[in-house]
């Protein structure tokens, strides 16, 4: 099939950037979306132009590196997938496809479709962990965890930190991301000792990075490649309020 691509090009952080149109032909429906971009880049190099920069690594939907807004939807039209798992059979011959980077003040564009997501790392640094050093831990079976709780923890822990939730949110809120980490530990006994501190610190850091707050649009859940439920946002609010009300830090 033949396609028209409208792509965001931006030289660096200070460049204003803009959309540029490319034509691409002989796209096979078996190709992944990123393989289609590989072909485009090969043709740009052959023509002496600079290829389009985009982030990717594992290409199997788990590393969280790929990050494209396709026709206005982070990770594209399929639900429960990352861009690297999107295939060209989802498109029709003659389509025009708009491809942009994540848009958020907290994720500055470094080049073309690549953004800086270190804000997420800083939020984890603020409290997204259980404070245990290596060694001296009890036997793994010493603390039983109900399967239902372990499953809720795992559901939240499957977050890949891609940032699509922020890109989709009209407020550029990171609450699905923060909630997922808080929820993972909330459902495990190991996580309870630091629960108050964790929620407060992560929320403070989230605010400091310039992310907005949740006003219940649920766009985040709709685009999340791991289909993380917004219940984690409710749980984050509960954990946060619990600390505020009891004052226990």
């Amino acid at each position, binding site marked *: 099939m033949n396609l028209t691509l409208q792509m965001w090009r931006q030289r660096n952080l200070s460049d204003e950037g803009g959309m540029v149109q490319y034509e691409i032909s002989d796209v096979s429906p078996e190709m992944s979306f990123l393989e289609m971009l*590989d072909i485009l880049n090969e043709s740009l*190099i052959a023509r002496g132009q600079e290829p389009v920069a985009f982030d990717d690594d594992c290409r199997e939907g788990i590393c969280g590196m790929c990050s494209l807004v396709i026709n206005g939807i982070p990770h594209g039209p399929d639900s429960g997938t990352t861009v690297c798992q999107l295939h060209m059979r989802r498109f029709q011959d003659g389509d025009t496809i708009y491809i942009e980077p994540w848009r958020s003040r907290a994720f500055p564009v470094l080049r073309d479709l690549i953004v800086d997501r270190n804000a997420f790392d800083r939020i984890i640094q603020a409290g997204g962990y259980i404070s245990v050093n*290596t*060694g001296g831990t009890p036997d793994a079976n010493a603390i039983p965890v109900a399967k239902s709780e372990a499953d809720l923890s795992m559901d939240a822990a499957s977050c890949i930190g891609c940032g699509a939730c922020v890109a989709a949110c009209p407020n550029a809120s990171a609450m699905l991301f923060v909630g997922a980490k808080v929820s993972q530990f909330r459902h495990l006994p190991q996580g309870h000792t630091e629960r108050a501190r964790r929620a407060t610190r992560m929320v403070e850091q989230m605010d400091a990075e310039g992310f907005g707050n949740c006003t219940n649009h649920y766009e985040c859940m709709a685009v999340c490649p791991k289909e993380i439920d917004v219940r984690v946002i409710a749980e984050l609010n509960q954990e946060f309020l619990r600390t505020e009300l009891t004052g226990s830090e």
Partner: protein
Amino acid sequence: MILDAKIPEGPMAQKWDNHRFRMKLVNPANKRKYKVIVVGTGLAGASASASLAELGYRVENFCFQDSARRAHSIAAQGGINAAKNYPNDGDSIYRLFYDTVKGGDFRAREANVYRLAQLSNEIIDQCVAQGVPFAREYGGLLDNRSFGGAQVSRTFYARGQTGQQLLLGAYSALMRQVGLGNVTLRPRTEMLDLVVVGGRARGIVVRDLICGDVYCASADAVVLATGGYGNVFYLSTNAMGSNVTAAHRAFKRGAGFANPCFTQIHPTCIPVSGDHQSKLTLMSESLRNDGRVWVPKDGDDHRAAPEIPEEDRDYYLERRYPSFGNLVPRDVASRAAKQVCDEGRGVGSSGLAVYLDFADSIERLGRDAINQRYGNLFHMYEKITDENPYELPMRIFPAVHYTMGGLWVDYNLMSTIPGLHVLGEANFSDHGANRLGASALMQGLADGYFIIPYTIGHYFASGSFEPVETDQKEFEDTKKSAADRLQRLLDVRGGRSVDSFHKELGQIMWEHCGMSRNEGGLRKALELIPALREEFWRNVRVPGGNGELNQSLEKAGRVADFLEFGEVMCLDAIGRKESCGGHFREEHQTEEGEALRDDEGCSHASVWEYKGDDDFPVMHKEPLSFDLVKPSVRSYK
């Protein structure tokens, strides 16, 4: 090159204990005086950085990804082994040790493997304490499943995302140390070279991938946890960015490279769909717990899979290996798949695939149970192939997955360059000629959490360290050579893209140094690779400049190193005149087509020493002795 493995004295079960007692210690207050550079943030790198920082060392940690959480360990699916014996099915440290030595086809160092089995249990405890949500039974205790090469259930897992959960555990420990100011983290920063001062590893040269700055970092020791080199084949299950550069540059600075020809071809990957293919996707080995592998008995049988009746199917693994069945080790399963496809019985449009069928398990356990176990893998399969594995059997084919070879290390995980330590897939030590499933995660975390924190202290306490400055000659010279090389890549301004060279190299390697090898083919590869390398430096086109984010330049540097390293792999494959594990030499096989080892002539690690760009590297041998597990014909029948 002196290869002193430094295996401690004493009975096998007490070696590590004895060694921990005899190793020198660094006083807690003095640990602040030592700085460690760690390259890589996968399971080995992140766990090492966090653990060293907790002890009080100053750590600077580098990765080329945009975040430490994205290292390729994240993609490991199936699980992590440990000798907990929770299921009460006969497991023990000794059995995990035995299975790993046997699974590695008797080409690993016994003492290292024993220590790995000993540490396996602590790893699970550590991960649970960090909040890794392993799968549990209804009673609240941890669940186990079985993997290839084992007849016990010793594999802990977190759905099909075990690597992700373990890595996020190590990453969160690392982030905690970054937050406390004990680790300086440098994402989007790639190591270009190693700096050796006075014979010891004292720093690295890196490139800031955002602005292009090339600069030096200095330390008292360097730890490489930079993963494997499977991407030399272009198509593999590795992430796009996985590369050999750090290890290869260390090799060129004097570190011995052990067993480079030992690569693992994983039997269950989604087959190639066309020339556009950029990578291959693994379907976890755990699927072989409930999936049955088969092809039609007759190569001309082109009926759809569900229409082929039971009597016309050949469940060839169950037929050939009745005691292990579908759970034979990876090398055996991969070769068997290649054999049936070579016989013309492969399925799918290319004929390069076999079926992995869940129909029986779905009937026995129900669709929900299968969904619970493998839901995300089935989802991934459907996304890629547009076929529903609940209704049609999966089509799978072997693909390059892991590299057992790596930089040579002694028992302390130190390479032949003093101060340069190597962890995880980047070293060679524990898996011999074939790695068992769910053992990579175990090794990466054992190295990082429980070995390097001890052995690096011993290294520091055993000598004195002159201060080094990054403006001294050794640093400046290494930095200049790295920067000049980048400029040379940009200056070629030829006609072919980096990817086109990488693809061509991958085809050469797959054809001649892949699932089966012979001397004629390997010699041919040794003519083709230098010719391709020569063309690369004459005709590659790298657009853009140096002082900016330039992905073509990043790739060009990595492919240039693969073009050198592929040759070392072929030399090693020629030199090893036997078949063992993932290394199948067609000249050395039994009448039934099974691998034929040569314990008299080849019971060694082959360690290659760099001798300059114009000379072949020289091979040294570390002889392997087997005191506990007597090498035998590795039978899974």
